[in-house]
């Protein structure tokens, strides 16, 4: 390199410090400073490490396995995305089919219309109404059957006809027996109540002693 060339480099370097060099001029400087130090004049040598660092910086690269690892990751993402789109497609198909099967019985021109959504929101109420109707109906039927056969009495599982005088007597006897039994039971329990008098007596004694 001639003395003139060194002068050119020096001028370029000055422009470089001022921030006025183009990318091409900067490339020239890098090329110049990255040659063997022996070709660089003494006064320019202090700046050599700077431009060498710029070049050395390019040698810093990502790990060798990165690209292969990355490609596998991206492929996996693609597979995942493809699965998602197929799932979405089957979901839409299923929806279409359900609408189609419902079409003959219920007229659904547009399932997103608010009118239909109101009808749908009334479904729980409608089911409650249906249950109530069933309940009232069954009660009506049950009470109806009992009033139809109202004049019937049963004693120990034996059905008696009230219109028959014999059966009426039997029913009277049974009722009398039942009431007698009830009265005897009350009398028995009444005997036990006598013991309560003892409490009365003792409280009377205590009261009289207090007065004194």
């Amino acid at each position, binding site marked *: 390199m001639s003395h003139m060339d060194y002068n050119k480099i020096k001028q370029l370097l000055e422009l*470089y*410090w*001022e*921030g006025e060099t183009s*990318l091409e001029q*900067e*490339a020239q400087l890098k090329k110049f400073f990255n040659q063997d130090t022996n070709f660089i004049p003494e006064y320019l040598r*202090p*700046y*050599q*490490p*700077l431009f*060498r*660092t*710029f070049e*050395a*910086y*390019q040698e*810093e*690269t*990502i*790990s060798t396995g*990165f*690209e292969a690892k*990355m*490609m596998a*990751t*991206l*492929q996996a*993402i*693609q597979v995942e995305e493809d699965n998602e789109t197929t799932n979405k497609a089957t979901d839409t198909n299923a929806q279409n089919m359900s609408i189609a099967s419902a079409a003959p019985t219920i007229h659904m021109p547009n399932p997103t219309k608010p009118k239909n959504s109101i009808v749908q929101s009334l479904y729980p109420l409608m089911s409650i109404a249906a249950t109530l109707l069933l309940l009232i109906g069954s009660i009506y039927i049950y009470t109806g059957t009992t009033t139809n056969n109202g004049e019937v009495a049963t004693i120990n599982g034996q059905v008696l006809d009230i219109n028959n005088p014999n059966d009426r007597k039997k029913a009277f006897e049974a009722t009398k027996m039942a009431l007698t039994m009830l009265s005897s039971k009350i009398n028995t329990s009444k005997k036990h109540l006598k013991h309560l008098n003892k409490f009365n007596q003792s409280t009377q004694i205590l009261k009289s002693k207090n007065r004194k």
Partner: protein
Amino acid sequence: MNLEEFNKAVFPMQNKLYRFALSMVSNNEIAEDIVQEAFIKLWKTRDRLHEILNLEAWSMRMVKNLCLDHFKSKYRKTMLFEVSYESPAAQATPQKQAEVTDTLQQVQNVLKLLPEQQAHIIRLRDMEGYSYKEIAEILQIDINVIKVNLHRARKAVKKEIEKNESYGL
């Protein structure tokens, strides 16, 4: 865009993205993770990549934002658990340390003294060879601001070199 086309368009810039991330996070593994994250983001938007005028500048900006996100989460983690990352110097093997010559280290140290934005600009311009327009796109700042900061950064580097030279270093 299929995987092959993506490979051709995106993978050639992997090292530039990696170095940019590395200059910000100072950790090889984290820088690689950030590039990976950027690639995944790009791949997920592959159908719209043709709309981007300068894919490289766009990707570089994405890496920068991911690095900033990393710092935000790192800050949160540090606040919560008092965890700090090892410095790159502590991670470097003795062999690697030996490979780094004193002079190169000296320049790296000079660059470290610069304000963050100036260091970004000088790296993108002098190390990666980006145009002012591209740097403006990557850093999302005005071209004139870039020119002013590049000038300041180079002046500071010159001053530092000459100072070291006068001390006989």
